[in-house]
């Protein structure tokens, strides 16, 4: 399957791209797709804890609605990856 990933703010800067299309096995979870992406250690540290779990401050939006890392993706899905920062 092919899915489109769009990054925001510091995640975008560490990825070096605003958006990219990746290929993965049908049914791979959002977590699985992101874990397979290679954009360097700093990108990985932004997204993942040392345990490998997605950091709780990472917001995933799949096809327009907030979703979970365990969501299984399908061909053509779009995933936006955003990390709100403190302050208000």
């Amino acid at each position, binding site marked *: 399957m092919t899915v489109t990933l769009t990054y925001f*703010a510091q995640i975008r800067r560490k990825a070096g791209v605003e958006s990219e299309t990746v290929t993965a096995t049908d049914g791979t979870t959002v977590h699985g797709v992101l874990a397979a992406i290679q954009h360097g250690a700093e990108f990985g540290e932004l997204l993942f804890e040392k345990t490998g779990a997605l950091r709780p401050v990472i917001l995933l*939006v799949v096809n327009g609605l907030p979703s979970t890392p365990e969501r299984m993706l399908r061909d053509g899905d779009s995933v936006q990856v*955003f990390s709100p920062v403190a*302050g*208000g």
Partner: protein
Amino acid sequence: MNIRLNERPYDASPGATLFALRDAVKPDADVVILNGAAMRGDASLADGDEVCLIRRGETPSADELEALMAARHTPGVHARVKGAAVGIAGLGGLGSAIAIALARMGIGKLILADFDVVEPSNLNRQQYFVDQLGLLKTDALAANLRRINPYVALELHAVRLTPDNLTPIFGSVNVMVEAFDRADQKVMILQTFAVNRPDIPLVAASGLAGFGSETTIGVTSIGRNIHVVGDLETAARPGWGLMAPRVGIAAHMQANVVLRLLVEGRTT
């Protein structure tokens, strides 16, 4: 003679003077304004004049205040705003300023939620006063809003917001505002409310600390109905705190996004 009196059309007698009008309509007025200028002496009135009669300390009636406000808005705006309900989660630097801006606009109803009390460190950016220290933010803000516009309906919730109570508290609003301080709470409301009520636009904030460029604060649309105000990156942290000017910019941008959603149904 067609004039406007306190922002409403008024048919004045030919030859009427300013003070005669005052004596006939509002004899207890102690401030008399003609075409924007406070007048100490009498003056003849002419067709098209705008007269404002004020008694110091008197709260205008609901109708009068509405007319005064509506006169300042673009036609059609006031009716939309008056019939709307907006929810604000968090009443700190963002939430308190957003509530005040919307109250000044004549919003119909505000649903306000925050568990916290007013602390001295809040005063550098939050819309509270030194004589309100220790009060619940819901109560303090409500008092301030009533001094600005006593006719806004207020629903207050002095509670800590959780995934379980968010939707029951805010499910009736036309637009939802996220004004939390902590990043995990921002994620919580985005994951909960935006999923449970994807039909309600959510105006969030991220990246507004310090005194960096004001021009990097923008509006980013994420997902179907989420609009994020801020530069998306500048987090509040030790040595780079939240300050009134930049927080105020973000807060008023959020309020403006709310207004555009209410009036135009969109932000682009």
